[in-house]
């Protein structure tokens, strides 16, 4: 299915849930990622049960670069 991931259009390879998508996209540090689905931040315990649908907007956000949080 087609998803928008961090603003880029991506054709996924069978992932049905957020957990599967994290694996499929080889997200390297899954413990450090926050996932936003269509504008809503997901609770970590719902990653496995949250189903994806065509056209979903997914944002992976990391907080490990040291960029200033206040700007």
């Amino acid at each position, binding site marked *: 299915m087609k998803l928008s991931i961090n603003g880029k259009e991506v054709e996924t390879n069978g992932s049905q849930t957020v957990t599967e998508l994290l694996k499929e996209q080889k997200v390297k540090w899954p413990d*450090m990622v926050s996932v936003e689905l269509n504008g809503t931040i997901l609770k970590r315990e719902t990653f496995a049960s949250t189903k994806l649908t065509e056209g979903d907007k997914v944002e992976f956000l990391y907080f490990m670069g040291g960029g200033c949080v206040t700007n």
Partner: protein
Amino acid sequence: MKKHTLAIHGGYAPDAETGATAPPIYQTISFAYQTAEELSEVFAGTAPGHVYTRITNPTPYALEQRLTKLEGGVGSLVCSSGMAAITCVVAGLLRTGDHVLSTAGIFGGTVSLFKNTFGRFGVETTFVDAADTEELANNLRKNTKLIFVETIGNPRMDVPDIPAIADLAHQAGIPLVVDSTLTTPILIQPKNWGADIVVHSTSKFINGHGNSIGGAIIDTGNFSWSDGPFEDIRELAKKAGQLAFLAQLRNLIYRDLGCCPAPFNSFLTLTGLETLPGRMDRHCANAQQLAEFLQKHPKVCWVNYPGLPSSPFYARAQKLFDGRGGGLLTFGLGNRNAAFGFINATKLAQNMTNLGDAKTLVLHPASTIFHEFGLDEQKSMGVSEDMVRVSVGIEDFDDIRDDFAQALAQT
């Protein structure tokens, strides 16, 4: 996976490229990127990556993942020391004019940090008897922004009613921070009793071999950062969700204070962590037997150990710590001379200001780590002139008992 397995396998699988089974020590300051775009994406938070060891490094990161799993949390941050971990938590949540509510009888360094160091920045702390949950409630103020407890107060050995205090904190809309250094995730997962943030001095039982100072902060996921009284973290929660507090630390407080651990220390701590569950079983079993031995000894005036039925905290410790009393105990010999005489006569036990080592350690707290506090203050902290503190090691119990017996005979 359960605790013994997680301590060995949690959060790190053999390195994909090399197959290294022990987490490699990334002894580097910085990490190079091929393109300017890639590095800018990491800074923007749209791509993951290690940038600079003051912020993240793969070796401490492996330790963070393992601790997160062992505590059942949503994420962790490891620090250069236990004090650095507590400093980050307080500096990350509080501002000038805010108030900390803490139990008394906790580690002297933490008391000093709250009272003296944060006191300089206009953060006030009230210390309340850990046994008195009602008194804690009475000392909550409008500007109280966190409640701090130790699972077992070091050295007062009292065990606070963590679930009741968690309720109290949550009714006030503030987080409960639990220092679980003495219990480690093996005796208690504070998350299951309502705690919001767990801190550890990993220098103690987690490292277990007295070779690496370190600390850790684990967010249990219990506190809703999008609702709390922390405006900046609330704002951040719109993007970071449950990781908002850790993100605020990582990208601001921890980064700015420079609290990062040395990768080599994280490596040694990871190695120690593998055997933590087995060591804790033995620390507790030896401490239990030593407490019972001391209690029967004619020269010993008193023994304070939460695993003894004579401790007022026995029932609570049994409930919270899965039937165990921990690896630390204190006992009294009547006066300072006798305490000094005993310490000088031990042969196996070593006299030093540490705990949680594989070796049995003894200390006279009043003249060492508490010497800066006056007598009255020492008393409220649970320290007396005749007190010996013992961190019971994992040697054969018979050898520990024989050493104590011969030292007591000379006292």
